[in-house]
């Protein structure tokens, strides 16, 4: 596919990734957030697919399929079952401040990715700041989330961000590494899943503030 088309495709996937993250934060990662998570997985899978097509390596395409299965379908499903339709509740800081914070984080992402983007030229390199921004947004979600579910979503966003950066900067990682990362993520999700279950049994809701009673 021509370079120009390739650049547009990369730009499109990056934009979708970023948009989904922003919407996630905006909508306070409630139940409605879950389709946005699958959207993000989809965008990531398409990014990998575009790279695969451009580089013409079959391996990347298999990887894209893998990402699609896990990140677009698998993990959001687990999220839905563990949240059991529970409302997210107000995060620690109101939406306006979190949006401004995201703006700041984007600026930081661009500053921080300067050395990375100096490595080479081409559309993939320009998209790296988006990956880093995604990671920072995930962190923001983690920090400001009041419920265990939000933590889960934040963690997934970070994971998507890191894989995006990996793909964009080095043209993809070998399958084994990606498999390893995905399995780790699965493990974390399972742990968080069990944790939220226990919190809900204990306190009836997964409000993290209840945890403060646990200290001696």
């Amino acid at each position, binding site marked *: 596919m021509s370079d120009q088309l390739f650049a547009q495709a990369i730009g499109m996937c990056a934009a979708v990734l970023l948009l989904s993250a922003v919407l996630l934060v905006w909508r306070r990662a409630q139940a409605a957030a879950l389709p946005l998570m699958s959207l993000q997985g989809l965008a990531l899978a398409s990014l990998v697919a575009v790279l695969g097509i451009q580089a013409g390596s079959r391996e990347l395409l298999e990887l894209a399929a893998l990402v699609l299965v896990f990140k677009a379908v698998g993990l959001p499903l687990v999220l839905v079952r563990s949240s059991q339709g529970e409302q997210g509740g107000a995060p620690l800081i109101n939406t306006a401040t979190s949006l401004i914070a995201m703006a700041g984080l984007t600026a*930081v992402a661009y*500053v*921080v990715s*300067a*050395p990375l983007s100096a490595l080479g030229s081409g559309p993939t390199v320009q998209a790296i700041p988006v990956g880093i921004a995604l990671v920072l947004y995930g*962190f923001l979600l*983690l*920090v400001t*989330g009041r419920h265990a579910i939000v933590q889960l979503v934040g963690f997934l966003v970070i994971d998507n961000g890191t894989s995006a950066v990996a793909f964009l900067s080095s043209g993809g990682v070998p399958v084994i590494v990606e498999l390893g990362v995905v399995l780790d993520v699965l493990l974390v999700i399972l742990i968080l899943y069990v944790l939220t279950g226990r919190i809900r049994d204990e306190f009836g809701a997964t409000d993290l503030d209840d945890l403060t009673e646990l*200290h001696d």
Partner: protein
Amino acid sequence: MTDTGVRIQLALLALAVVVALLAPVHRRALLSGLVVAGIGIAGVLTGWLALTGHAGRLTIPVALPFGPVTLSPAPLGGFFMLVIGAVGAVCAVYSVGYVHGPAASRTSWVALAVFLTAMQLVAASADVVAFLLAWELMALSSTVLVLTEHAHRATVRSATLWYAAMTQLSFFLVLLGFAVLSAEAGSTQFADLAASHVDSAASNLAFVALLLGFAAKAGIVPLHVWLPRAHPEAPSHVSALMSAAMVKLGVYGAVLVTTQLLVSASTWRSLLVLGVGTLSAVYGILQASVASDIKRLLAFSTTENIGLMFLAIGASSLLRPYGSTDVADTALVACLLLVMAHAAFKTTLFLGAGSILRATGERDLDLLGGLVSRMPVTSATFGIGALGAAALPLTAGFVAEWVLLQSLIHGGGTQNRILAITMPVAVGAVALTAGLALMTFVKAYGIAFLARPRSEGASQAQESPTSMRVGLVVAAASVLGLGLVPGLSVSVASRALGLGDAAAAGSGGIDLVGLGATLHPGPLLLLALVLVVPVVVVSVAAARRRPRRDVDLAWGSGGVRVSPRMQYTATSYAEPLSRIFDDSLRPERDVVVTHSSEARYLVERIQYRQRLSDVFESRLYLPVIGVIERVGAAAKNLQNGKINFYLAYSFVAFLVVLMVVTL
């Protein structure tokens, strides 16, 4: 050759561990004691081999990134292995009879073996990594040993806390110093460090860090607080080992740094070492002279002797650029003589204290007394040890102090104003220390052994078993031996410093070549014996005519009830001193008078309580600990149980790292 020696020691260590774990209970003390003594003797042999120039090289591949650990003792290291091995052997033989209760458990026997071997390895190590590994091993095993009697007394726990904190502080400082030094010199081998003559700003930091680290291990004054706490609480054979051998490794480090690794002509360094040494000598013996717990007294006397060694090192490095070099070499020889003398008499004194503790169950001098007739061997050996500690003629202590004084007075102050000031002050400090040491050990011996017993335990004291007596006699013999034949010890010390036989004379005496001063204790003793003959003859003649008559009461101006409580105790003995030096001892005295119920004018009981505080502790340590506690309290509410805060901390950290990497 020395590598075989070190291998033997490691093999013996393994054997000791096996024996300690498997031997049946009633045989364990004897077997483990003998094996640990074997380690000591192997140490002595290896040290002698290193001294006589047969240095072999043993590399042990350790899975550390810094590569294999090399153990090849230089003559100086060999000297310290010899001293530590000898002390270890004597203490091990002594401990066979001494250990009882928790000290006879498997852990304390294993810890003892590990402790002795670790000390040997520190002296034998030829590179920074080996040194630090052995140093930490020594620190840990000695902490375990200090903890043996924690079930009996609550103070053991707090003492060990202090001890562990200070030893780890010392380890950190030594690590910091060596790290900076190796970074500067680019290698971890001592030989390369010495050859590289590092002399930059960082080397000053390295020098101060290493000096403070070794001073903390040696018990030099600002960092001495663990010594008077840990030694009384440890079992006696362990405190003897710690006091006579372990603190010497602090001195070994100091000598190593000032003479080989960081040689420099800057006067502020030698003045620092000299000042710290003088301060510890005077302050240590001052606290010892007013201490009434016998082991605390001996611990402070260790601080004093270590102070004298640092004073010798400081004087030698001060004299080298100004005065002639052989005066500086004599000062170093004096330092090593002090090491040997202190090892000899301090072992005797601590083992004696252990024997008293075992026989009477008392450690407080105010409750002892009258032991000279009940425990003849212990009192004789403790007496010889006390003579050595007080540096009286014909003992090892006197020889060491004599050589030190000779090197100070030949300081050649004529060339330089700094020397003209420091040398007299140093001689004054050494003299005051010697005077107070005399007072301390007359008090310790007189109150503990003479007159009538002041407590039940003291009146039923029995002599200790044979193995303890053997240990005591060997240690006391070494005090007299080193005193009567100083030529031998001087030649060993000068060979350790690589000066050849600079200062040894024929008939066992000393002839300090550069200074023209000679000391021959042999003929002096002969003359004393010649002079004592007529005195004894006249006494015997008079005794035949007028035999000694027993009376049933000492003369207390006619009083009828002469009870042991009317005798002087250690506290009252040192009361004039605590009054003269009250500004630095800060005694808190209170007198409680209880009147009799019938009439206010009749007094039933008067109680005199006196508590002496350690001014360094109250002025330096307590404020520092207070600050640390406040910071700790403030840090506590960082941990408030909210997950979001924790995530926020990591997020901020992540951002900071990113920013740092990019900028």
